[in-house]
């Protein structure tokens, strides 16, 4: 089952990659930030989307920012709030 909100997020990430001159395709397990494919401005956009669309509390002291390095991690985080 696919979640339309996650599909939108995947599309957003593809667009960000393309904007940075990267191939827009990525696998769920691919590193997006540690690998240098996306930059910190992209990370801020993704975090804002996680907050506004998925209701993730970024102010939670347990929130670990390094857990959004791959789409699989982002999905896990998004679904944990569902």
């Amino acid at each position, binding site marked *: 089952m696919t979640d339309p909100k996650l599909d939108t997020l995947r599309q957003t990430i593809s667009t960000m990659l393309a904007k940075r001159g990267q191939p827009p395709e990525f696998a769920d397990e691919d*590193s997006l*930030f540690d*690998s240098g494919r996306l930059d910190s401005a992209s990370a801020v956009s993704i975090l804002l989307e996680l907050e506004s669309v998925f209701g993730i509390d970024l102010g939670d002291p347990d929130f670990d920012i390094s857990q959004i390095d791959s789409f699989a991690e982002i999905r896990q985080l998004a679904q944990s709030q569902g």
Partner: protein
Amino acid sequence: MTWNIAHRFEKAADRHPDNLALAAGQTRLSYLSLKQLAQAVAAQVKPALRQARIGVLGSRSIEACTAFLGIAWAGGTYVPLGLNHPDQRLIALFELLELDALIVDRAGVARLSPEVRQAAPDLILVPRDEPGTFAPLDSEPLTAELPVSDHPAEVGPDHLAYIIFTSGTTGMPKGVMVNSRSIALYLDAIHPWYELGPEDRAAETCEANFDLSLHNMLTAWSAGAALFIMRPLDMVAPARFIRAHQITTWLSVPSIVALMRQAGGLSAGSLPSLRLTWFCGEPLSAQAVRDWSAAAPNSIIENFYGPTEITVAVLRQRWDGEGPLTRERGIVAIGTPIDGVEAIIVDAAGQPVPDGIPGEIVLAADQCSQGYFKLPELTAEKFREFNGRPGYLTGDRGYRDHTGLFHHLGRLDNQIKYKGHRIELEEIDARLREAAEAELVGTVTWPVSGDVVAGLAAFYSSGTLEPEQVRARLRQLLPAYMVPDHLENLAEMPLSSNGKVDRKALVAMLDSREQARAAS
């Protein structure tokens, strides 16, 4: 006496073997573990040493740090290449450098396209599963144990410790060569006033190919302190990182402060663990230092100045709560030279000028670098003897005031700082000429907010190519941070009276458009 820069780490590891030396993500390495990993890297690269230059394709990782120590341990020259060069530029660097080996971290592995691999040295070490360990790419694991050296290789004071590349006006970056003596003099000069100890917890805020990263590693590892690597995502929320790891000492570029302010992560009293902050690499605005001071009430704040060419930094100024400021720019003064360094203001003829008169800042010190790699003419132009010591003409404008403090007024040329990176606008121009197939091109900083460059805009005159085509080509030629945010094909390029592209006119055009937009 040994001049090997790994020697200070070794002494700290002997004194504090169980202390935390390095942390990244979930991985924690003690001094003893890190020493063993560095020894293993040294054993792997030592048989390949000819020119002694070893490249590191990586940044902000356990592997990149282990590679740095291992190369030093083996007596090699560390050449951090970072991760932000596009393939063509990386290949050009390999051709220039004639590396004996290349060490790659996990992010670097993704950069090994067939073209890059072909240009790379024969020996490429790639990460194994265990953090900080490597295996040769495409080779069978060795069955016999490699001989491990208990101590760092003996090297002399003139041994080339590292080469760091910085933007060059010709379109190719230039490599600054720093020897072991320079690093030792630098560390000895700054030690008395920072006094890092085994209880300290430092943050690695910088990319590996920026020399401030060497400051962070070497000051922490000379003292038995812990170094926490900020991975790319950690850079999004530095305040969170400082709190989570109870960071006590911090050195970064000031633009991080603006980022934190925007993200709302810099409230008063929110960073109580910090006891010492250095800002370096860019002008430190009075506003940034006040915000930081309020957020980190227990921290001393030092403004630190110096180009890579003079070995990390050479002038310092402690913030006293109100200043001292360089009033003309609303920034903190760059202060006075550290031990062993002389700063001189000279006129266009290279003659010293009296206090209060602006001129070029010249830095003379035994810790001066050896010049630019394979660029003897540029080295002769920029590096000259002053008062009997090696000196460097910085290209920075400044003056010394009547109390003896030095102030920074800007550049004499088109070198700029953008997002913490040092960029020669001519380097972008050179690549834009190629990408746009245009003779007339001009890159400017725009918009500029106060003293801070907020964007790059570039123009070219070419009948055929659209900006998006040019942008796609530029991405193949320059790191992402150097690709202008605004690209425009101009039918008529403004020229100055001597026939050069008039950058001021380009800025004026952008300003007037902006004003017209705001008015409508």
